[in-house]
C-alpha cells in the first residue's frame, strides 16, 4: 500500500483504543522503516519480469467508514483512501517530501508563501483534468466550519489562498510553519463532483472519485472493498489489476484464511510471527517483513502528584524497570527499547541522551537519595510516613499494555514500590481519568509522525482539559525549542533544536519511554517488487507485480 496520507498531516496519531487494535492489525500500510528485512525469494530473471494482472487480497480487521479523506479519521478508511487519492506532496522511501500532484514548489524568502506548480497530465478517475481549482476547493472544504473534519487545524493557518492559473497556486501563512508543507499531502477532492453539495451528504462517501492509482469498484459493508487499477494514472498504470480488502475482525480467523491461501497479505502478531509461521510450507508461500513501527509506548507520570515531582524519583523508577524484559516477554523480542519520543532509527532520534539502564540496586540508592526509605520494615518504601504506592491506569482492549504494566508492577515491587493496575474502557478512561488529570501514572502510546513537531504534547500551555500535555510537563526551554523547530524549514538546523529537546526530556523523565514495536506484515511470495525502505513497504505499491507465470486470479471487468 501507499502511505496513509493522513499521517502526513497528523503529527501524532493516537495509539489509543483504536490503535490498540491497530497494533495487531492487518494494515501494513503504516510508514515503517526497513529493519532486518527478509529478501523476497529470488526468481530466475526471465520468469520475474513485471507484468500486468492478478489481484491482491488484503486482510483488515476493520471496515472503512467513509471514503472521503476529509471526513475519515480511522486507519481502515485511510488505507483505502491512500490508494484512491493523491496529495500535492508525499514522502518518498527515505521520508523526504517530494511532489506528487505538484511538479515542484517554491518557498518564498520570508518562508511565508509556498507556490505550487501542478503536474499537467493528471486526470480524475472520470477523465476530467485535475487543476488548481480542485486544490482551492479542497482547501475551502477543510476550513469550512460546517465540515466535521479532524484535519482543519493546519489549513486554518493559511492566511491567503491564491489561484494564479490552472496549474499554479500560492498559499500564504501568518508565520513560518515547517509542518505546513507536509499538510498538503492530504487527499485532493474533485471540485466538479462536490462543489455546492453538503460534503457529509455526498454520494462520493461510498463511491469515491480521486486521482490515485486505484479507482473504486465495489464495497459490501463489513465484507470487502474492491479497487481496480486506474490505467490513466499519471505515474503509469499499476501492475496489480485489483486490490481487494477483506474485512475479518478476528486475527486468528484471518490467519487461518491466510493459511488457506484465501488472503495474500496481513499483519502478524508477534506470536504468529515467532511461533506459527516458522514452517517450511509457510516460508515457501509467504515472505515475512519486519520494520520498526511509527509509534511508541510509555509510562507517563502525573507530575502534579507529589510523589513524582522529584526528577530523581522518576529517573529511579526508569532505572528500576527492566524494559528489555518487557520487549522480550510481551513482544517476544519484536520491538526495541527507546529513550526519547522519536523513532530510534530515524533522522530525528538523538542517540546521545542520558540513559537509565536497568539496575535495581542503583534504583534503590537513587530513591534513598530522594528520601524514600523503608523505615517501618514492611518492604515498601516510605517518606514522611506515607508508603510509595501508586496505580497505573491503561485502556481496555490492549493486552500488550496490560502485560507490560504487569511486568512493571513486578519490577517496582523489587525496589519497594507497590503498584496497582487498573484497566478501564477507552471512553471512560479518557473522560474520567486522563482528561480530568485523575491518575497517578498511565500506560499509553503515541504515534510518531513523519514530521518531528511535538508542540501539542510537550508545550507547557497545552495542559488544559482535553489537551495532550496531561502529565503537566513544564519547561520554558522546551517551549522555546519546539517553537523554533516548528518555524524552521532547514532540516539540519531543525535537528539541532529537536536534539536538545530530547536531551531535556531524557533527563527529566516525565515519561519512562518503554518500547517501539515492529510491524510484521506477511505477503504471498508471488508478489515481486517489494522493496523495504525507511518509510515501509507501501510507498511503491504501484510497482509491485506478479510475474505472468505466477498469476493466480484473472480479473473479469
Amino acid at each position, binding site marked *: 500500500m501507499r502511505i496513509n496520507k493522513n499521517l502526513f498531516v*497528523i503529527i501524532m496519531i493516537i495509539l489509543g483504543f483504536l490503535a490498540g487494535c491497530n497494533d495487531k492489525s492487518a494494515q501494513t500500510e503504516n510508514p515503517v522503516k526497513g529493519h532486518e528485512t527478509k529478501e523476497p525469494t529470488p526468481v530466475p530473471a526471465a520468469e520475474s519480469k513485471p507484468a500486468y494482472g492478478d489481484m491482491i487480497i488484503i486482510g483488515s480487521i476493520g471496515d472503512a467508514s467513509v471514503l472521503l479523506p476529509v471526513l475519515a479519521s480511522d486507519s481502515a478508511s485511510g488505507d483505502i483512501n491512500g490508494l484512491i487519492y493523491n496529495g500535492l506532496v508525499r514522502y518518498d522511501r527515505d521520508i523526504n517530501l517530494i511532489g506528487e500532484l505538484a511538479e515542484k514548489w517554491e518557498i518564498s524568502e520570508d518562508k511565508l508563501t509556498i507556490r505550487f506548480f501542478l503536474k499537467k497530465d493528471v486526470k480524475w478517475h472520470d477523465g476530467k483534468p485535475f487543476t488548481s481549482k480542485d486544490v482551492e476547493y479542497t482547501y475551502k472544504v477543510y476550513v469550512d466550519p460546517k465540515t466535521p473534519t*479532524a484535519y482543519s487545524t493546519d489549513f486554518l493557518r493559511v492566511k491567503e489562498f491564491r489561484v494564479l492559473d490552472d496549474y499554479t497556486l500560492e498559499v500564504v501563512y501568518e508565520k513560518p510553519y515547517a509542518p505546513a508543507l507536509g499538510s498538503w499531502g492530504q487527499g485532493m477532492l474533485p471540485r466538479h463532483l462536490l462543489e455546492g453539495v453538503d460534503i457529509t451528504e455526498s454520494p462520493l462517501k461510498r463511491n469515491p472519485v480521486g486521482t490515485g492509482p486505484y479507482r473504486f469498484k465495489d464495497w459490501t459493508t463489513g465484507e470487502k472493498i474492491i479497487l481496480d487499477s486506474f490505467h490513466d494514472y499519471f505515474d503509469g498504470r499499476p501492475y496489480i489489476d485489483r486490490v481487494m480488502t477483506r474485512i475479518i475482525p478476528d486475527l486468528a480467523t484471518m490467519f487461518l484464511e491466510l493459511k488457506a491461501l484465501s488472503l495474500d497479505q496481513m499483519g502478524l502478531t508477534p506470536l504468529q510471527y515467532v511461533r506459527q509461521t516458522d514452517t517450511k510450507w509457510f516460508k515457501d508461500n509467504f515472505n515475512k517483513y519486519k520494520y520498526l513501527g511509527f509509534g511508541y509506548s510509555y509510562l507517563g507520570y502525573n507530575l502534579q502528584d507529589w510523589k513524582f515531582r522529584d526528577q530523581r524519583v522518576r529517573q529511579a523508577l526508569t532505572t528500576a524497570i527492566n524494559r528489555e524484559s518487557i520487549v522480550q516477554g510481551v513482544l517476544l523480542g519484536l520491538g526495541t527499547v527507546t529513550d526519547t519520543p522519536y523513532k530510534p532509527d530515524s533522522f530525528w532520534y538523538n542517540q546521545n541522551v542520558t540513559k537509565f539502564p536497568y539496575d535495581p540496586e542503583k534504583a534503590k540508592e537513587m530513591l534513598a537519595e530522594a528520601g524514600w526509605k523503608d523505615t517501618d520494615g514492611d518492604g515498601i518504601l516510605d517518606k514522611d510516613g506515607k508508603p510509595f504506592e501508586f496505580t497505573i491506569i491503561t485502556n481496555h482492549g490492549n493486552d500488550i499494555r496490560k502485560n507490560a504494566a504487569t511486568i512493571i508492577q513486578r519490577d517496582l515491587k523489587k525496589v519497594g514500590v507497590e503498584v496497582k493496575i487498573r484497566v478501564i474502557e477507552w471512553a471512560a478512561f*479518557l473522560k474520567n481519568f486522563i482528561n480530568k488529570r485523575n491518575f497517578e501514572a498511565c500506560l499509553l502510546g503515541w504515534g510518531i509522525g513523519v514530521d518531528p513537531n511535538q508542540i501539542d504534547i510537550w508545550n507547557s500551555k497545552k495542559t488544559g482539559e482535553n489537551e495532550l500535555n496531561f502529565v503537566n510537563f513544564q519547561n520554558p526551554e522546551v517551549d522555546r525549542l519546539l517553537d523554533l523547530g516548528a518555524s524552521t524549514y532547514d532540516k539540519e538546523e531543525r535537528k539541532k533544536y529537536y536534539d536538545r529537546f530530547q536531551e531535556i526530556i531524557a533527563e527529566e523523565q516525565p515519561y519512562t519511554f518503554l518500547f517501539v514495536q515492529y510491524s510484521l506484515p506477511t505477503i504471498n511470495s508471488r508478489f515481486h517488487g517489494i522493496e523495504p525502505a525507511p518509510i515501509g513497504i507501501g510507498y511503491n505499491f504501484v510497482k509491485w507485480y506478479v510475474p505472468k507465470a505466477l498469476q493466480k486470479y484473472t480479473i473479469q471487468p
Partner: protein
Amino acid sequence: MRFLIKRIALMIPTLIGITIISFAVMKMAPGDPTSLMTDLNPNMNEEAVKRIRAHYGLDQPWHVQYIKWLGNMVALDFGKSFAADNRPVLDKISERIPITILINILSLILIFSVSIPIGVFSAVKQDSLFDRVSSLIVFIGFAVPTFWLALLLMILFGVKLDWLPISGFRSLNYSYLTPLGQILDISKHLVLPIFVSAFGGLAGMSRYMRSNMLEVIRQDYITTARAKGLDERTVIFKHALRNALLPLITILGLSVPGLIGGSVIFETIFAIPGMGQLFYQSVMMRDYPTIMGILVIGAALTLFGNLLADLLYSWADPRIRVSD
C-alpha cells in the same frame, strides 16, 4: 378483539418508557460520539471540537436531544448515524438484518428439531444410557467456548480437509454464480456458524423439554390414558407431548427479539457482518442514533413476541382463553 386493541395500546407507553431509560443510560456513559475523533488528537483545537459537537447537536441538553429524537421516531425517521459514514440508521440496520435473521432462524430450527426429541426420550427413558450420554453432550456444548470450538472446526474443515470455507457468508466470486450456485455457496458458508451457534443452545432447550415431559408424565391423565389400555406410543406422543410442548410457546415468544440480535464473538470469529457487530461498534463509538434504533426495534419485537405468545396460548390452551 377488544383485548387485542387494549394490549397494543398498552404497548405504546411501555415502548416510550423503554426509550427514555435507554436514552438516559446511554447518555450517562462517559464519552460521546466525538471522543474517538477528537480526544488525544493533536490536530484538534477547542474550536474544531465545538464545531463537530454542534454538527451532531450534542451541544444541547439531553432532554432536548431526546425529544428531538422521539419526534423523528414517531415519523419512523431513525436519523443518521453519528459514525463517520453518517449514513441513515435504517440503511445500516437493514443491510445487516437479513443475514442475522437467516442465521438465527436456521439455528433456532436446528435447536428445536434436535433438542425436543432429545428431551422427550431422556424423560421417557429417564436415567437410561441415552439420557446420560445426551445430557453429557448437550452440557459439553453449553460449556465449550464458542470461539474455541469455532476455531477448531475451522482448522479441521477449512484448512486441513478444505471442505468448507473458513469465514464470511459468501465467496469472492459470488456475483458470478448461478442462482442455484449462490444458494449452495451461502449454505456452505453457513454450515459451521449455524452448527456452532446451535450447539451451545441445545442444553437449555433439551433440559427444559425433559423436565416438562417428566412433569407431564406424572399427571393423572397420563395414568388414565395408560389405564385405558392405550399403547405407550400414543400415550407419549399424543397425550403427553402435546401438553409438554405448551410452555415452549413462551420460549418461542421470548426468542422473537433474539432474532435480530447477534453475538459479537460469534460474528467476529466468522467475519459475518451482522447485527451483533453493528451494535457493539455503535456502543463503543457512542453512536447514539444507531444504538437507539437497534434498541427500539429490539424493544418493539420483545413486546410483539410477548403478545404473540399470549395469543398462541389462548389458541392452544382453552383453559386460559380470555372470555369476552
